[in-house]
């Protein structure tokens, strides 16, 4: 009896893809601009077929200019954060690890603040600066978290937490001493906001996402073994140091990517892997794609709710993920059958 076959993985992914598709279609329907499902479908078909002239430009605008990019961004961010969360939970051997525990989001926030201070109205600079801040934090925490030249999980965790606190303190200092007008946007950025378009073309971001996701996925067998114990994994032939490095860099890059385009959306990276674990087991060969798809679904649902629940006001996505995620998690936890 084989526990996990590629067929099962493809099957689960297929189901999750279908759910994602349905969620995307529903999300396309909802919004402040009145447009019927029929018109949405016509717009989509004509758009895919290349017949742009046949669609009223305002429909095109709403579907392809406003809603779809936002949904696409949401999928990107959800997949990135959940996979990063799953990766960190294995790397740090801690079920409470989320993508921000190593200070990546604080570094990104600091980068964003610095860019707001120096050049507030340059379009897209805030995202590039945020990613730069995240990358710098990744490097710094890596060097702090080494022990004997290798990544040591408890040391890494400590280094990350310390960095996060330190960076948050700097951020607080900057926010109180600097011009309040410029930093008004920071509050939204910190809460997580999907309404701003990405500075870089989404296609490049997706490419990076898929590359990094693929790299992390190739270590999934190793992660299964590492979860039973690092020493045991070494004795079984796993190159633990290399795997840890790949997962660390990959997961941190994904976090930095997500945070720089959408701010720090919380709870997704922590809850989605756990929910997927409850539904599909702890095998990382299935968990990684399941988390990615599950995270995408979660963010799209949360974002749809965020922009329609109290229309026309938009709530921050991070608030919705917390509100919606925690009860789901509690429900699944109580229902868990051993």
């Amino acid at each position, binding site marked *: *009896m*084989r*526990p*996990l*076959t*590629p067929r099962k993985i493809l099957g689960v992914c297929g189901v999750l893809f279908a759910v994602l598709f349905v969620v995307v279609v529903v999300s396309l329907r909802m919004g402040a601009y009145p447009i019927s499902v029929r018109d949405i479908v016509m717009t989509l078909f004509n758009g895919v077929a290349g017949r742009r002239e046949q669609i009223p430009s305002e429909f095109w605008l709403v579907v392809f200019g406003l809603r779809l990019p936002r949904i696409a961004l949401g999928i990107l961010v959800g997949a990135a954060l959940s996979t990063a969360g799953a990766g960190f939970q294995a790397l740090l*051997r*801690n*079920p409470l690890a989320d993508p921000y525990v190593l200070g990546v989001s604080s570094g990104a926030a600091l980068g964003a603040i610095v860019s707001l201070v120096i050049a507030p109205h340059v379009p897209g600079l805030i995202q590039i600066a945020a990613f730069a801040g995240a990358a710098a934090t990744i490097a710094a925490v890596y060097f702090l978290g080494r022990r004997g030249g290798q990544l040591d999980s408890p040391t890494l965790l400590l280094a990350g937490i310390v960095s996060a606190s330190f960076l948050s303190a700097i951020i607080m200092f900057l926010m109180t001493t600097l011009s309040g007008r410029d930093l008004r946007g920071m509050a939204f950025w910190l809460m997580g906001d999907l309404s701003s378009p990405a500075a870089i073309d989404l296609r490049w971001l997706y490419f990076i996402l898929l590359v990094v996701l693929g790299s992390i*996925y*190739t*270590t*999934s*067998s*190793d992660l*299964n*073994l590492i*979860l*039973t*114990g*690092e*020493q*045991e994994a*070494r*004795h*079984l*032939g*796993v*190159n633990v140091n290399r795997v840890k490095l790949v997962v660390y860099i990959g997961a941190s890059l994904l976090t930095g990517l997500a945070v720089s385009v959408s701010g720090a959306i919380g709870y997704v990276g922590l809850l989605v892997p756990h929910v997927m*674990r409850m539904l599909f087991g*702890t*095998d990382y*060969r299935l968990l990684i794609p399941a988390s990615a798809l599950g995270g995408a679904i979660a963010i799209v649902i949360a974002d749809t709710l965020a922009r329609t629940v109290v229309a026309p006001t938009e709530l921050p996505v991070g608030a919705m993920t917390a509100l919606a995620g925690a009860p789901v998690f509690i429900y699944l936890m109580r229902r868990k059958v*051993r």
Partner: protein
Amino acid sequence: MNVTAGSGAASGSQMGPLAAGPRPRLKVEQVSYAYAATDRSAPKFTLGPVSFEAQQRELIAILGPNASGKSTLLKLLGGVVKPLSGRVEIDGTEVGGLDLRTRAQKIALVQQESELLFPLRVWEYVLQGRYPYGKRLRFESDEDCLMAGNALAQVGADELRDRWMEQLSGGEKQRVILARALAQQPSLLLLDEPTQHLDIGGKVELLRRLRNLADENRYTVVVVTHELNLAAEFSDRIVLLQKGKCLRIGAPGEVYQRDLLEEVFEAPLEVETRTSGRPRVILRGSH
């Protein structure tokens, strides 16, 4: 099962590298090791030099008081740390030169286990032992399942197959861990104090099982243990260490001398010889 170079049932009571005969499965030649607190300070601990050989079907026990270097020796045998001098060879190849996967195919090392983070079934746990065979991102093949099933049968844990790891008792868990090691199809089985958390029944059962595995399935087993009497009962040879020095290597009857044991363990001990010819250690003055 692997067919090893050394065939035949050598009795294994020879000492030293000069013994002629089939190539030994495990060969330890003047292995020494030292580590220091920092690079520049004097070594805090030195081990060795140690030399011995082991054939298949042999069970060797490494004994000694605490901090005598038993675990370090085991790690040297397993290739986890590189010796300062000397060589460790398995089936004629130096252990240090093997890449991780090949080493895992030949040597299975069972140490103190870590805590499991997430629930895992026994079957999945044992299947992880098949990792050294196959590519990096791998899915278990039918052969893997067959081997894992064999491993479970060898330790007599077939009925535990679908249980959760956390629900197992100490003895059952030890058997499952052993099964995972056996699933690696190793030539050499190394165990670091496997009887630590078991009750006396569990200890006996484990060592008896190891003995069976050595005899019937032709493994070479090296066990680090504190159990003097069980080691005497089940092992072919004993390696006695004290403070990093190898004091004696030989059959239990040869190594268990009262003066030697008293000096090493710093306890009032008596050695009796039982009818089977194997010695037994008891506390002096406990009549």
